């Protein structure tokens, strides 16, 4: 089915004082349970269990702390279904839940020095305190979102798939040239 797979807004991009682009399909697996026990199942992936509000990365994968009993594993989309089954098998008999949520999400990349300035208009987050290696679960406008620093002058945002257009419109509007608040940049 890979030729017919669609992310929420394939190819959507806008140029403002930062570039906003939908980042395509990304594998995402929700893991719930005792974080110590989840470590055991995740060990083969080479990812450290993230501390509170942190995100750890190794190769194409990353692991984000979502709540005291929830992690989010991000990995190439093509690996998600198989990884879900493997993890479910690993955790069989444990009080743990593994769910493939890859298709429930949309991912956006914000590129440019002003990325935190754009997000500051939408999220009640202190971006000066959001360091590389951290993730914030928050809201953007009127919907839920999670945000992290993905690299030099690049931030990533995850939201629910159904509100991808809303999110794209929000980010594009907040990044309109002439509206630079010059708060973080």
């Amino acid at each position: 089915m890979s030729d017919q797979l669609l992310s929420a807004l394939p190819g959507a991009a806008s140029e403002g004082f930062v570039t906003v682009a939908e980042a395509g399909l990304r594998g995402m697996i929700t893991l719930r349970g005792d974080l110590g026990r989840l470590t055991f199942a995740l060990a083969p992936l080479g990812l450290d269990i993230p501390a509170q509000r942190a995100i750890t990365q190794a190769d194409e994968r990353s692991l984000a702390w979502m709540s005291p009993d929830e992690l989010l594993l991000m990995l190439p989309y093509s690996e998600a279904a198989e990884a879900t089954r493997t993890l479910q098998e690993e955790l069989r008999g444990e009080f743990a839940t593994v769910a493939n949520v890859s298709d429930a999400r949309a991912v956006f990349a914000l590129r440019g020095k002003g990325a935190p300035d754009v997000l500051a208009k939408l999220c009640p987050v202190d971006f000066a305190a959001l360091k590389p290696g951290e993730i914030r679960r928050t809201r953007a406008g009127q919907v839920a979102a999670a945000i992290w620093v993905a690299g030099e002058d690049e931030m990533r945002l995850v939201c629910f798939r159904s509100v991808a257009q809303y999110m794209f419109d929000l980010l594009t509007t907040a990044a309109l040239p002439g509206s630079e608040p010059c708060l973080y940049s």
Partner: protein
Amino acid sequence: MSHRLSSGGRLIDRGTPLRFSFNGKQMSGYKGDTLAASLLAADQMLVGRSFKYHRPRGVVASGAEEPNALVGLGSGNRFEPNQRATSTELFEGLRARSQNHWPNLDLDLLAVNNLVPQFLTAGFYYKTFLWPRAFWKHVYEPIIRRSAGLGEAPDAKSCDADRYEQIYAFADVLVIGGGIAGLQAALAAAEAGARVALWEQTAHWGGRAPVDGVEIDGKPAEDWIKTTVERLEKMENVEIRLRCMGAGIHDHGYTLGYERVSDHIPGSHGPRHRLWRMRAGQIITATGAIERPLSFAGNDLPGVMLASAIRDYLVNYAVAPGRDAVIVTNNDDAYRTAIAMRRAGLGVVAVIDARADVTGALPQAARSAGIRIIESSGIRKVKGSKRVKGVEICAIDSRGVAFTEQLSCDAVGMSGGWSPAVHLWSHCGGKLIWDEAGHFFRPDPDRPPTGADGRPNLRVCGAANGRLGAVLAEANAAGLESAQAFTPTAETGPAATDTTHDEAPMEPVWIMPRQAEYELRAKMWLDFQNDVKVSDVQLAAREGFQSVEHTKRYTTLGMATDQGKLSNINGLAVLSDALGQPIPATGTTTFRPPYTPISMGAIAGGAVGDVFQPLRRTPMHDWHAANGADWEPVGQWRRPYTYRRAGESRTKAVNREVRNVREAVGLLDASTLGKILVSGPDAPRFMDMLYTNMMSSLKPGKCRYGLMCNENGFLMDDGVVARLDENSFLVHTTSGGADHIHGWMEDWLQCEWWDWQVHTVNLTEQYAQVAVAGPQARRLLEGLGGTDLSRDALPFMGWTEGKLGGFDARVFRISFSGELSFEIAVPAGQGRALWDALLQAGESLGVMPYGTEALHILRAEKGFIMIGDETDGTVIPQDLGLNWAISKKKTDFLGKRGMERVAMQDPERWKLVGLETLDGSVLPHGGLAVLSGRNANKQARTEGRVTSTYYSANLGRGIAMGLVARGTERMGEVLRFAGPKDKVIKVRIVDPVLIDKDGERQNV
């Protein structure tokens, strides 16, 4: 006359003239002007008419406190009323018009109100328009509304053309006010290592210091301001912002800032206003002070201004309000204006001082400059009609029956002392004390606002703290102490030394002259914007209004858009005097945010147009949009109500879809249905608590319909549960109920049953889901192939998963239409492809998509209930004949106790039945079955109501369900339903299941 001086003006750029219009008249000013400055420069002293009496009014002040100079700015979808000319920066092409007059500013016929002012004294409306009662709404109010009021509301059909936005920000120390105190406080906090934000409401740093001749380290204040701003700009930990007003301080350091991003550069790309939502650890307010007017007769005439405003216009904009001014004062500060006038080469006829023996440094300097000082005196009245022509002088301690001297002048500068701008201090609970020396309220250092930890989180410095002399040392300490809240050992250097003239004590004057007779008091304005006079407040006191809050509301003192910035202290002083009590005993009214009005656009922020609110889209949304979908909102989703073909009416489209499902096969985008995974060792037990029926006995691979009730037993949600394995269930909820039910589950798991081992995961958006319903449904799916969907392999109420035409599918054999029906769930990314594949595979079978209206009709033909139609939060499952879905075996479930209450057991409860009109017509939505007689509320008595009503194309007549008293015991009875225009519709009570009572069609 007011005019522009040939030289000077520290804020204007004479090289850049700007054209603007006022009431259509072309005028010009300079870059850097405020609108008020350029109006005065053009001798436009009359700028508006007053609220009640339509008296001519001119510019009084030079900043945010201005009560009179309000104009309508712009036009069309950029028109905005009540804009202060004193804080509007001039720009090329600005269009302003004056307000509250008819037919025009110069000739205002409504000024007759002014001839009989005793008609509009305090409480006039309350006393006069009591009778006849109906006249208020239809006669009095429309007349009063035309006469009173400020600017016009923008045209209701126009839509603001500008953009607005909001932004979240954080700081250790937020300093509000960019005068020298604010700058010093910010510098100290920043040097001590704090993360600092500094806001200034105007376009310039430094506040009044340059105008008032303050010297810092022996040099003009302007030098220090420039260096300090440069230092702050270079510091990494400091964020400074002009044109950003601290609008309100709320709980726990949450502060709103109102940034006017592009008011001064209209047509630029950015937003017009930006609302800052700042969370500050510590706040310093350095908001300065506001000069008070003096209350003498005719103090509202154009040409009478605050003394400080006169020197602001002189020094900042090189604009003189007159050629020969009289200054009237009770303090030394006003002499600065006299000296500034003289220095600018203008005439000062005299300074009239209420005090005896005036010997302070500033008065002496004025004397040395040859200015005449008239001591122990006041203004009896101002002469002139539309502008000042002269003043009459009398002894300050007199009734002012006669004047002692007349002076000709074309401007009057008045100063009744200064009031610290304590608004922000007060917003979040800071208390005030009366300063006996300065005669003003100032922040009480012992009762400051407090933060989340109960400790003070706000400091105040400068004139806002009642300091009218040197301020830098105090500001430095405020900055350092605020920083030390984060780093107790932080240090900073000493402040520079600011020096200004020493001032002799002021002497309070609340009425001028002090024993003024009524004639004079009735012309002394306290609140210019709401037209409240000294006599009004005194009348209120005589009529028994003792509380300052009551007097405020009775007289409207301080209730206009300026919230009494000029009138507050004078008004309560007059009230105190009338009540014979000291001012602190009277107290002040409450200061509430915002400090000055902020735009509605800033409050709405970016939430307009496409992003007004989130619109949720399914993976097939674009297909629906391209194929004639008539949208219907379902929660935040949009679902197709029906798909209209070219030239097809909505009704015809629905009928076509309804018939096609029964005759061939239809596709429904069911992706919006809630899908919640419930898993864990205690999941079966949890499911039994959530649902009224037994879920723990459901076998993996099977589905079961279930009901959820709230604690009161009222039906809340319904849907099909699929058991995935021993410890996990997939809960389908209604489209609108998904988030609520997920929250409901988590509420019980986190708060009540925290020791149960259950996880919930909301998977609603992970799957695209399509219902394939109709006699040809199986054939259609067999066309895709890959999974055996035969009756034996997948019986009714079973589910399976596997490849279906290459899709990763989970197939549920469930039916909400009564037809042979499958719901196919695939990962959302495959949703659109699945939809296309189903349409293609069904082409030869007559497949059509169907919308929510067809869905509703199909279920109604089968007598299936719909949450929100048959339920409204007061309906229990038993009312709907769903007793079969309520377990008798379970010891408990949510709602069980609620259902056992007496009212829920009442045999008179309205029960669900089918309703069949005798003439085959469609019953009106919400129609009521009417009985004779009236109930206790004098309403017609009723015995039933319609919950669902449709035209059924399959049956060729109207069908309906409804709740009827003892309905199920009354089969065959005919009820009388109220139709439109008193028409009676006869309706027979029937079985709600109208098609395929035995369920053969869905079971094939």
